[in-house]
């Protein structure tokens, strides 16, 4: 882990120092930490990519386990859409194999809670309607690695997020083909077909309910960044409720139901709840709409003095980003950045750039985005599982200018 030089985040620094002195003892290990050898792809004992994602670019990824990996902060690139070989992997169930999926054109999607319940094959859906949409796909725990109480789970920093171009069918078209909703639905409940049959659905089925209002913009996607949706990202069909955290974008989607109640499975009822530290339960809010967030991707460490282009990405969940400000002094002063590159709609992220004139020295650079009248807070919202972090301070960078 890299040590932060400035004192902008004393709590985190204190933690790092504390854990180092008791290495090997319980205090250091209330989680599965990133080992440096995993994180750094250039280390002599760096782990390779597991078989199901051999096609990814190793040097763009930080490996947390054989099942979870995030994109290096700088590997997001600056072309709005994240290259597919750089996109993070976080799958609750094992990725389905080609053999398990069978003939992709015959993949089945069951639709319930509509006037005429139906089962469609993928090829039927592909001939029923089509749309393309860019959305930010972000794991609920992206930024967990900044929480000083070290919540269990992968210690994501910024890389469990990507901006993706999806092609598929609008959910509204599917509803229309089924004669409309049967009435009384409060949620869209999407079910994955990826749970191994020896597990208990109540505990392991990935089934997520989101408010029925998502039907306006949601889609079922079979293509990602111009290629057939890879199995590792939920192919051949994935539910995309734009602006909602990754978990709601159900992979290997086999069923869509319009329901009066939320699903009763563990992944809906207990997991992904934003509760205070030390508390848990289904009374706490679910990881649904993503809050406004941004982070700088360049420069990461150092720069030459003079004109320095500070750039990054910003998104507003279900709301359009209205502005981004950048600070070069740890948040004392803020100046408006310029939104650049194509605007791919409110669910995509925007790139921003701010040209600063910097003399040699140390700087703490931070970004703060606004969307729908809300700005990123300075601090993280403390919560038990380390979800939904959008505080700007933890996402700031220390750079040296020479």
């Amino acid at each position, binding site marked *: 882990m890299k040590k932060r030089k400035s004192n902008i985040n004393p709590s985190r620094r204190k933690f790092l120092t504390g854990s180092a002195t008791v290495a*090997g*003892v*319980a205090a*250091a*290990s*209330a*989680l*599965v930490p990133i080992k440096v050898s995993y994180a750094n792809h250039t280390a002599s004992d760096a*782990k390779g990519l*597991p078989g199901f994602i051999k096609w990814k670019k190793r040097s763009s990824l930080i490996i947390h*386990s*054989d*099942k*979870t990996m995030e994109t290096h902060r700088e590997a997001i690139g600056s072309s709005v859409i994240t290259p597919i070989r750089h996109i993070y992997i976080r799958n*609750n*169930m*094992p990725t389905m194999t080609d053999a398990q999926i069978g003939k992709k054109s015959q993949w089945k999607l069951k639709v319930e809670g509509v006037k005429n319940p139906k089962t469609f094959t993928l090829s039927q859906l592909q001939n029923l309607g089509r749309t393309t949409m860019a959305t930010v796909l972000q794991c609920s725990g992206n930024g967990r690695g900044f929480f000083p109480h070290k919540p*269990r*789970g992968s210690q994501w920093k910024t890389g469990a997020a990507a901006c993706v171009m999806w092609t598929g069918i609008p959910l509204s078209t599917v509803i229309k083909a089924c004669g409309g909703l049967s009435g009384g639905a409060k949620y869209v409940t999407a079910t994955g077909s990826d749970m*191994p049959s*020896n*597990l208990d659905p109540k*505990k*392991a089925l990935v089934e997520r309910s989101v408010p029925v209002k998502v039907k306006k913009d949601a889609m079922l996607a079979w293509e990602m960044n111009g290629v057939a949706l890879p199995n590792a990202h939920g192919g051949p069909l994935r539910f995309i409720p734009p602006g909602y955290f990754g978990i709601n974008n159900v992979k290997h989607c086999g069923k869509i139901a319009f329901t009066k109640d939320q699903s009763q499975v*563990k*992944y809906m009822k207990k*997991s992904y709840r934003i509760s205070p530290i030390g508390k848990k339960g289904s009374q706490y809010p679910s990881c649904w709409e993503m809050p406004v967030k941004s982070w700088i991707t360049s420069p990461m460490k150092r720069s030459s003095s003079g004109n320095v282009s500070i750039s990054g990405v910003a998104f507003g969940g279900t709301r359009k980003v209205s502005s981004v400000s950048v600070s070069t002094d740890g948040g004392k002063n803020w100046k408006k950045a310029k939104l650049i590159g194509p605007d791919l709609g409110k669910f995509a992220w925007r790139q921003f750039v701010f040209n600063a004139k910097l003399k040699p020295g140390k700087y703490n650079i931070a970004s703060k985005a606004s969307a729908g009248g809300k700005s990123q807070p300075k601090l993280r919202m403390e919560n038990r599982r380390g979800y939904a972090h959008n505080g700007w301070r933890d996402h700031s960078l220390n750079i040296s200018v020479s």
Partner: protein
Amino acid sequence: MSANFYKILTILVLFSSAAIADENAKGMKLFNEKAMCATCHTMKAAGSKGNVGPNLDTLKPTVAQVKDIVTHGLGAMPAFGEDGLLTPEEIDTVSIYVAKNAGK
């Protein structure tokens, strides 16, 4: 040193290595049977090839890490401690077993 001392020492060493082997066997039994870790995790030493959770041979967790996650659960992983699925002693045994054998 007296001959007696060495006798006692030899007995102690034999006894404790037998105890360690016994604990290891207990841990493996818990791993494969009562706790059913093998259903979801790969660990060569236990002969398991589960593919739901992380590969333990790759992860090589510490005793404390295993204990924490076995006690509290995570996602599809049950909270064996909180939900009373394993006793605290069993959690200790299986945690030590996993930490010792992962990656071997």
